């Protein structure tokens, strides 16, 4: 199928940070029209590899060769790579919300008239053409980007890449905030792009997507190239085995347990949209959770799971009504602090924005919610604080050289463990988990599941918000 020369090739890439190797001898190659899946656990070196590839690290800061159409590519910056035709689509959307769709698509790459004026008619037309290629015909290209949802915005990013005449597209966890339907649209568009001869590198923790869209899979582990196989010869468990280096016999450490009395009940909770107060985001939702029970809350993106949970937790920004009962008594929760005082804890969906305080250390993040427990009057007793932190780090297998390091230096999975530990230290009656394993690798996922099951054994109820919770409904 792919008889041509590789479009892009990396040979023996070695990248060190002050003597510590992050990548040691990575090889990969992509041919035109091929989609390469890049798999590896958190911290395996995928992000570093992508930064080398896209020119974030200039060409003399690593060893090895990068070949583009058979010739060595020496990028001094990302704009050099983009000029060659390599465009990376980041996990977070990189769009300016207030600018129009057209302005975003051509940002930094505008079509000009004389005196630096923007050639709007030409750009609007070209933008509409590009979007039509992506099967988007109902978009008003002159409207601000913020009028459209995440799924559309992701496609605008692709249109932007196409406007730059990208020949190699790199997708870094592109579907983490998309609904199932939007994911399907995205994947079919990648198929179209492949047919048009565009090469893709697809990075995702979601192996079903990787299996669906990729032709070849390269697995890296601890900065080393482990294997490259055609996708037809692999199955999900095979990929996992290559990623973690051993077969994970159980992906879900399930245990049986008795379910107790109702600890949390929410009755007739309704929430209204923040910007559009006429619109109901949650309409008379109710739930009951029993001690030791793990309740899955399913729903697509935008179904109102997060809004429902934050309303119970007192963290919803808009107007909300409803009754919350904890252990048989109605409670008033206006702020998250009230919820925590009643034994309700929340692990938010967006770790970076709502979970961690990046400048603070691992230890300070772990004890953030429970700091008063270590205080004698107002002064923090650092001895007992430290003892707890070390116990938590060992229990959850948080990989950090020291509890004094900034939490931002940890990998995503370990950051998530820190956030979980922070809330678990409040010894909650009910733990609300909103997508707790999003963007987390399989090894860390296992640790997180285990921790939740341990808590459940001790009678803590949990409610999970998951997009895909088929495996979880208890």
């Amino acid at each position, binding site marked *: 199928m792919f008889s041509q020369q590789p479009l892009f090739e990396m040979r023996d890439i070695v990248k060190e940070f002050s003597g510590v190797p992050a990548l040691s001898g990575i090889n990969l190659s992509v041919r035109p029209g091929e989609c390469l899946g890049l798999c590896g656990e958190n911290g395996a070196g995928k992000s570093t590899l992508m930064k080398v590839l896209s020119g974030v690290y200039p060409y003399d800061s690593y060893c090895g060769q990068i070949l583009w159409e058979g010739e060595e590519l020496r990028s001094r910056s990302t704009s050099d790579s983009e000029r060659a035709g390599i465009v990376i689509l980041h996990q977070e959307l990189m769009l300016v919300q207030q600018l129009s769709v057209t302005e975003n698509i051509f940002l930094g790459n505008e079509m000009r008239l004389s005196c630096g004026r923007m050639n709007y008619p030409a750009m609007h037309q070209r933008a509409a053409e590009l979007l039509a290629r992506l099967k988007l015909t109902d978009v008003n290209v002159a409207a601000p980007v913020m009028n459209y949802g995440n799924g559309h915005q992701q496609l605008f990013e692709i249109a932007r890449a196409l406007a730059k005449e990208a020949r190699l597209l790199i997708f870094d966890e592109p579907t983490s905030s998309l609904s199932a339907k939007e994911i399907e649209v995205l994947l079919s568009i990648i198929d179209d792009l492949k047919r048009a001869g565009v090469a893709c590198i697809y990075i995702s923790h979601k192996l079903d997507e990787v299996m669906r869209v990729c032709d070849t899979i390269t697995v890296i582990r601890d900065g080393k190239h482990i294997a490259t196989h055609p996708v037809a010869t692999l199955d999900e468990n095979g990929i996992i085995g290559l990623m973690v280096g051993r077969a994970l016999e159980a992906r879900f450490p399930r245990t049986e347990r008795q379910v107790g009395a109702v600890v949390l009940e929410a009755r007739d909770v309704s929430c209204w949209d923040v910007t559009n107060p006429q619109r109901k985001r949650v309409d008379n939702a109710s739930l009951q959770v029993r001690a030791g029970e793990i309740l899955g809350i399913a729903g697509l993106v935008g179904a109102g799971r997060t809004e429902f949970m934050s309303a119970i937790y007192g963290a919803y920004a808009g107007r909300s009504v409803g009754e919350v009962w904890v252990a048989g008594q109605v409670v008033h929760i206006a702020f998250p602090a009230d919820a925590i005082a009643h034994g309700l804890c929340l692990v938010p969906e967006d770790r970076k924005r709502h979970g961690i305080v990046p*400048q603070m250390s691992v230890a300070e993040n772990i004890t953030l919610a429970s700091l008063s427990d270590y205080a004698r009057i107002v002064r923090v007793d650092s001895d007992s604080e430290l003892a707890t932190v070390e116990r938590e780090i060992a229990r959850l297998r948080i990989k950090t050289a020291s509890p004094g390091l900034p939490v931002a230096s940890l990998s995503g999975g370990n950051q998530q463990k820190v956030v979980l530990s922070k809330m678990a230290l409040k010894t909650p009656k009910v733990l609300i988990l909103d997508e707790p394993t999003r963007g987390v690798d399989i090894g860390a996922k296992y640790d997180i599941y285990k921790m939740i099951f341990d808590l459940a054994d001790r009678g803590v109820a949990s409610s999970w918000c998951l997009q895909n919770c088929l495996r979880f409904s208890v």
Partner: protein
Amino acid sequence: MTNMKISSSELRLLFARHKLLAMLLALALIWLFFWHQTNGGFLRPNSISNLLLQMSVTGMLACGMVLIIIAGEIDLSVGSLLGLLGGLVAILTVNLGWNTWLSVAVVLAAGAALGLINGALTTRLRVPSFIVGLGGMLAYRGLLQLSTDSVTIAPVPDDLGAIAQAFVPPGLSWGIAVLIIVLTCCLTLARRRRHHRLGLKVPPRWMDALKVGAIGATAIGFVMVLNQAYGVPLPVLILLALLGVFSWITNQTVFGRHIYAVGGNVEASRLSGVNVMRVKLLVFMLMGLMCAFAGIVTTARAAAGSPSAGIGGELDAIAACFIGGTSMRGGSGTVYGALIGALVMASLDNGMQQMNVDTSWQMIVKGAVLVLAVWIDVATRSERT
């Protein structure tokens, strides 16, 4: 070429790790320059005593301001608030003939209350603190002019003037110096123990010994030099005490930890159950209290309440914080850094005055130093996030 790169990145690392050392080095260079330019006059005991006295007002404001900036806010009203509170103490003691200590207590309470109002406007009514400060800067200054009829109120009673003009008896100064040295030894030992337990790198013994030695030498030298003048000025002692209290708040207390958390990530802090509003309110209240301290000292030092007192004080305080390495985005900074920043600002003022530099040039130099200091800080940050 590769060699040069490594050495420049190493320099960066050195700089980032030993920020305090770098700041002290810069300060030493500034002092050396002025010492040379004034034929040694700049470092005479009288001049140093004057410098520290001059610095103490900015330092008091900087103590409060650094907390505000760490919490991710800003307060532009402090210069006017200082003037208003300094005017108030003059009005109470001179015009109304109140007892000095009662007046001081009332002014401290008024400072805290006005700070709370600034905080409430920011947190409860959600007016951005920049705007609240801008409004306060105008309104408080206007209030001061209104209440003093724009005339200077003088002379203040002797016991009020003594707050800024008195000196600590030499013997007591020595006692305090010894106390500081003992305290430093204890704290260093405690930190070594803690680092050891944390699994952090424990610095070599000689390094800590050097540090304690340097602090001890500074304390002794400080007392020795100032005792050659008239002694340690009382406001300087107050400032040292404030340094201790504020360092303790930021490093040891739950409240202090919460200030950093709120400035680092408001949402994560709120969801962790931190009462964000209360933290910010308290920070603004402390700022108001510091304005009261600074206002009283200003009035006492001039022995008069002036309607123009404290003009530009907010800029000096904010500049001191940033020179001292406080992050613009909130979430990081230290009290001692801000005080070193205040000392840099005061040194520039004092040195250039002694050199008879034109005031317009003084402003240009101070502005340039502020930008330069923050540029160095930004350029030596290990990585952008």
